[in-house]
């Protein structure tokens, strides 16, 4: 009996101590790992989030760029950090793909999910003097000879490549027949498009906006079911061709699996407030990033869905393991 009391007391005091420790979270500076290099979209949005978390929670949130290996190095660093809430990170689209491609043993289940704050569908662009006036023209040309249309916008297996494969598949063709030119991302692909070396670029609106306004390129379709609010006249592909589309780039906040629930809740509440705030929306709007919010289990559901769509496109592209 005595032993039981002692044990209970110990358990209670431990619990209380634990609670006390977390009641004050964060008590010291928090490290925010960004798996991509300074200057990219993940870095830019991650720094906005970090600054705002700092204001909300009263401790410095220091952004550290851990780059390399297509985001694998940084994602691994977040997963392997101490799950005490003092190391968190920005997790990105690629997490939906590593498993299916077989490049790393990383999945969203390895993380304590705090919340999703951004998702951006890509869009399809052609050179201004292209013969394809509408997405219908392009679809007809691709159907006639999928090999003849050269598209670019990312490396093999990048989100824009999978978007393209998914669209080609949506036209009822074999996704592996599509002709993809690998580049390092949106900017070099747009350069190739503008110089007339390729026919189609699959990139996001913010990247292409200046070239659109310069009259060098045109947007044919948004790769989603909703039009982009800034470009309402570009038809969504679901409407134009009746293709159901679930691939989009996303960014969220997460930490290593096993973070205390109280800590995740504190962070999720703060992040929810940030994403809902006008200040955040203004900043994201200016950078042309879409704002979405999915916290906790919603975030997990979202990632489950994405994982399936990405997996299908990856195996269709012949990139699966």
């Amino acid at each position: 009996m005595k032993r039981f009391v002692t044990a209970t007391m110990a358990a209670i005091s431990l619990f209380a101590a634990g609670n006390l420790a977390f009641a004050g979270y964060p008590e010291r500076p928090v490290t925010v790992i960004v798996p991509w290099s300074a200057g990219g979209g993940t870095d830019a949005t991650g720094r906005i989030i970090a600054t705002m978390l700092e204001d909300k929670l009263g401790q410095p949130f220091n952004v550290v760029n851990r780059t390399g290996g297509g985001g694998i190095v940084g994602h691994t660093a977040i997963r392997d950090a101490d799950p005490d809430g003092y190391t968190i990170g920005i997790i990105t689209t690629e997490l939906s793909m590593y498993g299916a491609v077989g490049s790393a043993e990383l999945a969203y289940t390895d993380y304590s999910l705090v919340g999703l704050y951004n998702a951006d569908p890509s869009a399809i662009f052609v050179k201004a003097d292209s013969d394809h006036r509408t997405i219908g023209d392009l679809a007809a040309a691709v159907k006639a000879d999928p090999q003849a249309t050269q598209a670019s916008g990312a490396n093999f297996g990048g989100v824009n490549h999978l978007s393209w494969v998914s669209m080609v598949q949506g036209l009822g063709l074999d996704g592996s027949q599509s002709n993809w030119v690998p580049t390092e991302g949106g900017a070099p692909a747009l350069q190739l498009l503008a110089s007339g070396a390729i026919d189609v670029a699959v990139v996001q609106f913010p990247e292409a906006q200046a070239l659109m306004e310069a009259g060098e390129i045109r947007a044919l379709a948004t790769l989603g079911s909703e039009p982009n609010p800034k470009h309402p006249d570009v038809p969504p592909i679901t409407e134009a061709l009746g293709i159901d589309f679930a691939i989009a780039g996303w960014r969220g906040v997460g930490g290593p699996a096993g973070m205390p629930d109280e800590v995740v809740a504190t962070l999720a509440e703060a992040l929810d407030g940030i994403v809902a705030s006008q200040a955040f929306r203004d900043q994201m709007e200016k950078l042309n990033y879409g704002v979405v919010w999915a916290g906790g289990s919603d975030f997990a559901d979202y990632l489950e869905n994405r994982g399936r769509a990405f997996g299908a496109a990856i195996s269709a592209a012949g990139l699966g393991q």
Partner: protein
Amino acid sequence: MDALVLAFGLVFTPDTLIVIVLASAFGLFVGAMPGLTATMAAALLVPFTFYMDPVPAIAAIISCTAMAITAGDIPGALLRIPGTPASAAYVEDANGLTRKGKAGLAIGISICAAAFGGLFGFAVLMLAAPMLARFALNFSSFEYFWLSVLGLSCAVIVSRGGIAKGMLSLLLGLFIAQIGLDPLIGQPRFTFGIGELAGGISFIPAMIGMFALAEILRNGGRGLQTAPQAELTNPFAGVGATLGRYRLNLLRGAAAGSVIGALPGIGGDLGAWITYSLAKRSSKTPEKFGTGHPEGLVEAGATNNAALSSSWIPAMVFGIPGDAVTAIAVGVLFMKGMEPGPQLLTVNPHNFYAVLLVFVLANLLLIPFGYAAAKAARYIFKVPPAYLNAAILLFCVVGAYAINNTMFGVLVMIVLGVLAYILQSRDFAIAPIILGIVLGPLVEQSFITSMTIARGDVLGFFGRPIAAALGAITSLIWLAMITRAIGGFQRVRQRQTPGA
């Protein structure tokens, strides 16, 4: 004209001017610290710009990066630790001058040539931005392939120790660039299952190791091999005369830099290498290059900053950022409602002119800041060599660590430093290795992209007019080198035959 007046009003406010001076000082500090990069400086400034008005926000980023990149020449000149891949092109000459006791002259030439190049680039930006941007848009992966091969060829031609050894150095650099994930499907290469290697060997720890650590290994026992620094009241004495003597180099460097810099993603790193080799080819005394001769320093230094100015052209006119720094700046432009694009020049030209004025101010500020740095440089060499070497070693470790915040960077620095020490003692040039590491991924990427577009047809590399011209120039350079090599081989044989 009204726009220009309006722009003056925007820039010459106390707030903006204070921001420019503070950001420049910050950039000077970051740039002069080995291993800390301009990209890092700009990224650290971004959160501050959230709270600023548009013009001061852009001013902060521009003046900080311009200063940081130029200040990267200072540790290059003093300690043989180049701050950027571009300054690696002329680090031997800058450091050579320091060894002759002319550290002030070395820094002075770098800074003043850079300021001139920057101002020249500004003039180009002002007059020809839309035209140059349109020209740069014609460059596809085919042209990029030839340009990067041309740049690599230049590094081999200028390298000390002969073309054969330069070529071997270059191949080593290209091999190091192969380590990591391949650009096509992300297949790991030469990683041996080590996660850190999958990220590739980044050039900053490589550069720190191969230049600075190797130098300590070479001279550590004896202390820095430096002549006593001349005690001058004016550390910039003789800078004007030197620049005057090489004024043609100065002009040519700045002009070439303005054009090459406008090509997104390649210009900044490559320009200085091309013009340095141009200076050597056209010099009356090419044998002095690499020993502390100011000629190449003048030309490549001017190229460096002119390219920096014009690298903003594709970013501002078409929103295509060439490197991480301009990408950050484009982000800030977006955030402040000054979206890049041709309308930046037409709808709100005063904003565009304000940005240009910031360029001018930042480049002019280079001179007093550089003067102060040169003045202070003398004191570094009053430190006993053993302490100085220990401090440099500390900077090497910190700089290599800071790039990714891992000890892996330090390991890379040490391994490549020892390797460079061994290679150098056998007369192999180090610079081509660095350029191989920097440009290797670009060569490979543009080759694969081009081959995919041409569907495996090699003739595709000559299928576009600019590509064909660049390809012809590159092929001719190699043909000339091979002919000379064969000629040399035959002469050796003829000399041997009578004796045999």
